[in-house]
């Protein structure tokens, strides 16, 4: 995927300490609109913290985070999506989506809400409350809410991990369709799953156990192909990533699976 020169999200020399825990260490990376960057890493390595940094919700201890050369400001050009849907249970589907559009005049806001609900196929459910929806539908509402303000970047924190296998595959396809469209946002997608990384990513970075450092940064040769699983390189790449992830976990003294020696 060609990177659009106008929208760039860049980290240089970023470290983060929470309490007295070093969480991320010396991260340098850049992504642009149009790319799906997958962040893969063991539990607790700092993936969520990385997204919070990118969203401007926390500031790095050292180094810089920049969206188009300025520090990111929450809600400006960046949207987040979470594993738990985080819908406001007291608001209808339409009002939940509208929550991400505080600054639009009413008429424009309503137009944009129906537009994105149409995009995720939920316009019939606009007046329902989240309690009446299935997990997959709730996550589509969350996706619509994230897309509504037309973000330059969409930061997704294991968004499909709570879905059943079928819903997960359908959502993966839906995500690729939406971000593949022209004008789609750049995506930073956090996952635990090597398969999800290979199916979605244009590029994959692998983080070490805490404090997270980038130990692998690779392009996916079969990105955006219709059936990535069938590609001849898929098994070898999967094995490589999985082996590195496994090694990282087994050699991490903080891990449940640590084996000394």
């Amino acid at each position, binding site marked *: 995927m060609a990177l659009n020169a106008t929208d760039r999200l860049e980290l240089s020399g970023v470290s983060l300490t929470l309490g007295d825990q070093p969480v991320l260490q010396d991260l340098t990376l850049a992504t642009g609109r149009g790319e799906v960057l997958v962040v893969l890493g063991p539990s607790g390595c700092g993936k969520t913290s990385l997204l919070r940094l990118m*969203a401007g*919700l926390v500031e790095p201890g050292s180094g810089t985070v920049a969206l188009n050369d300025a520090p990111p*400001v*929450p*809600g*400006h050009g*960046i*949207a*987040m999506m*979470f594993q*738990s849907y*985080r819908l*406001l*249970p*007291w*608001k209808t589907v339409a009002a939940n989506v509208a*929550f*991400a559009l*505080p600054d639009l005049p009413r008429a424009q806001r309503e137009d944009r809400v129906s537009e994105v609900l149409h995009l995720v196929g939920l316009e019939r459910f606009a007046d*329902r*409350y*989240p*309690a*009446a929806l299935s997990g997959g539908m709730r996550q589509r509402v969350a996706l619509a*809410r994230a897309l509504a*303000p037309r973000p330059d970047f969409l930061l997704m924190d294991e968004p499909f991990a709570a879905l059943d296998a079928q819903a997960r595959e359908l959502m993966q396809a839906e995500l690729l369709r939406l971000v593949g469209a022209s004008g789609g946002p750049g995506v930073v997608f956090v996952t635990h799953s090597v398969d999800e990384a290979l199916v979605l990513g244009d590029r994959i970075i692998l983080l070490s156990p805490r404090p997270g450092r980038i130990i692998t940064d690779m392009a996916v040769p079969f990105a955006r192909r219709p059936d990535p699983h069938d590609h001849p390189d898929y098994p070898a790449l999967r094995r490589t990533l999985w082996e590195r992830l496994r090694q990282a976990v087994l050699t991490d003294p903080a891990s449940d699976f640590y084996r000394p020696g």
Partner: protein
Amino acid sequence: MASQSAHLADRKGTGPVATAALRLGFLALILLAWALAARHAPPGLFASPVAVAKAGIGLASSGKLWPALAASLQVYLVGTGLAVMFGGALGIAMGIWPALGRTLDIYVNALAATPRVAFIPLIIVLLGLGLEAKVLIVFLGAVMPIVLNAHAGVQAADPDLLEMAASTGASRGRILWHVILPGAVPFLITGIRIGSTIGLINTIVAELYTAISGLGGLLAVYGSRFQMAEYLAVVIVLALIGVGMTEALRLVSQRLMRWRDV
């Protein structure tokens, strides 16, 4: 929709008609027990349901009941209403500014644990025996549970939803109005329910301890003359006020929490 009403009936166990029938049946049982007790009690200590009903009609038609009811309702509703506004605002402020919450928490709890009757002489010295004193006595009784519950409701705000809201760039006011307050509604309703119960008790206390007036005044008069039928009729009017308040709060909370029953 059929599936939805089935699901609602499941959750509540019985439909509204069955509930009403059961309640009426229970009322009949109480009246029966009451009538039997009245027949066997020494005369002058108790009155039968029929005597109480007659006394109640007498009070209403003679015009004694209505001014007393109006006076009591005024004290009760003004005192409780002020407690809802002030207590709600203070509790919410304590939740939004943790430093304020930590500072005031111990005092609010201390005051909540002190029997408010202890303040009555002081209040009389400050405000006299009139309406202001009575309203303050009701207010002091009702306000503490409202403050404590509003505070707890704000503190219980879901951190995941707060982070989501922050990630959309929502302002503090927007987060308060759309995320924190709707989440605190069950707590606020609970606080108001407890507060209004104490408020009703304190209405009677105030009417007995300051210038005698209202329904509390009627209780004092009929109690001292052993007019048990009239006395019990006033007690029933008080119970009806309590029931009315509880039902009104139930309707309000149902309306605010529609999103739960979808």
